[in-house]
């Protein structure tokens, strides 16, 4: 089985935000929630870089460890998913996440958190694959269709890579060697305890 990861090559990202838009459209993500976002570092300064970030599907995910109802599970592809039927919207996963992935629609009491929503790596939830129930809660299940996450698939500069961790690391490594520079595999050290050595 593959170990699915995201890798954003910040030296290619042009901050077009198409990944953000594609994600919102593909999954009919609720108003006010962005499963993916593009952060521009050192904005307006020499050496500015943009990084597209979503849930990194961590190894030993901190969100899963703090969840008081244990609603998280890791698929065979090492994708971290959660069960919205079990989620109580306590917010602990958002405290624990280093990447700001978990978000909440403001539907519950006092206008606070509803059920948590985050990137599913385009692989739905615990419902049967590609069912309507799954689509309504989690969005489409592209992995079940044999496709990779849409954000990475339609990235115009191929900055955002999705797929097996070893393969995308090799692609990134080759790029860095060929062009002579690379700003790093953003988030890898925090998410997987390792980075892409070049």
């Amino acid at each position, binding site marked *: 089985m593959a170990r699915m990861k995201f890798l954003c090559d*910040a*030296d290619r990202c042009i*901050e077009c*935000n198409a990944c*953000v838009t594609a994600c919102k459209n593909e999954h009919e993500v609720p108003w*006010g929630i*962005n499963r993916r*976002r*593009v*952060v*521009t*570092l*050192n*904005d307006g300064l*020499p*050496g*500015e*870089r*943009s*990084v597209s*970030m979503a849930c990194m599907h961590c190894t030993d995910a*901190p*969100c899963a*460890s*703090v*969840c*008081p*109802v*244990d*609603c998280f599970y890791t698929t065979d592809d090492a994708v971290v998913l959660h*069960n919205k*039927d*079990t*989620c*109580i*919207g*306590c*917010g*602990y996963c*958002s*405290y*624990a*996440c*280093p*990447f*700001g992935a978990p978000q909440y629609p403001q539907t519950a*009491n*006092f206008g*606070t*958190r509803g059920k948590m929503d985050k990137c599913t790596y385009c692989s739905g939830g615990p419902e049967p694959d590609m069912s309507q129930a799954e689509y309504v809660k989690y969005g489409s299940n592209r992995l079940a269709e044999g496709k990779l996450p849409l954000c990475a698939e339609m990235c115009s500069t191929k900055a955002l890579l999705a797929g097996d961790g070893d393969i995308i690391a090799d692609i990134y490594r080759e790029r860095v060697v060929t062009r002579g*520079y*690379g*700003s*790093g*595999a*953003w*988030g890898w*050290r*925090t998410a997987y305890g390792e*980075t892409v050595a070049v």
Partner: protein
Amino acid sequence: MRYLSQFMIALAVLVFVGQASAQVNPTERAVTEESMFEALGTDTNAVAGRVSIPDSSAGNLIKPENKSWASFQVGTLQTLSVVAVVGMVGLLTLFYIVRGRIQVDSGMSGLKILRFGAIDRFAHWTLASTFIILALTGLNLIIGTSVILPLLGENAFGALTSLGKIAHNYLAWPFMVALALIFVLWVIDNIPDKVDVEWLKQGGGIFKKGVHPPAKKFNAGQKVIFWAVILGGAGLSFTGVMLLFPGVAGAAADWQLYQTIHALIAAGLSAIIIAHIYIGSVGMEGAFDAMGSGEVDVNWAKEHHGLWVEQEKAKSAKDSALSTPAE
């Protein structure tokens, strides 16, 4: 004119060359994950930048520090909560085995004296019932996955915890009202004084049969409980309201801090309240009546709150003297 255009071309070439040489290494000063992490140092801030979506907190790209809150949550905090609750129950069991139920030494007199009126008892039981539910639903968030989840399964446990969360959010309000009421009603009798020193010196008579140091309406032990409840309850209320309104509280780092303080106070106060429940029920003969019917046996009152009984007697003597018509 000719010279001017030649000059312009020369200038343009110079500018172009200048730009080209500045672009020899386009990544010379590029930010790297490594350099940004190094710049963070021991600071708890995130690797952050600008986002074009309205939520500015989304600009935090990576915040490795969040993982330490997560590991504290599942490690130290769980252990501390279990130790506080189970430890106190263990201590009290041991105490019960050694000391047994504290009896009224002079036996029940059958005569009653009013200790707590209806308002006192209403405030006490509102505070008590909400606290117990708040404590149990709170404890469930910390140890439920390892204790109750295996028994109920994910669906039932999720539904139960969801109800628990709603109960926790709503019962917090009557808890706070009752806390304020208790403070107003009892603060006057809970200001520490010299009598408490003597009471504490004698260990409150808790550990020895037949020892009954004098006490006013509340003895030093009760004063400790009072102030623990007031201060702990205020801390819980403040941090709890902050957690209910995360937008007011700030960002993730603030929520983590409030949650940690909230959980630590809750663990400590739960242990104290378990001891309070023990001594007010099985631990001491005649004690429950104070909050049950509100009237306690006079002999119990004399043993545990001698000075208070004298005060009450003096008061009623004065009242009856006043109400007696002059002859």
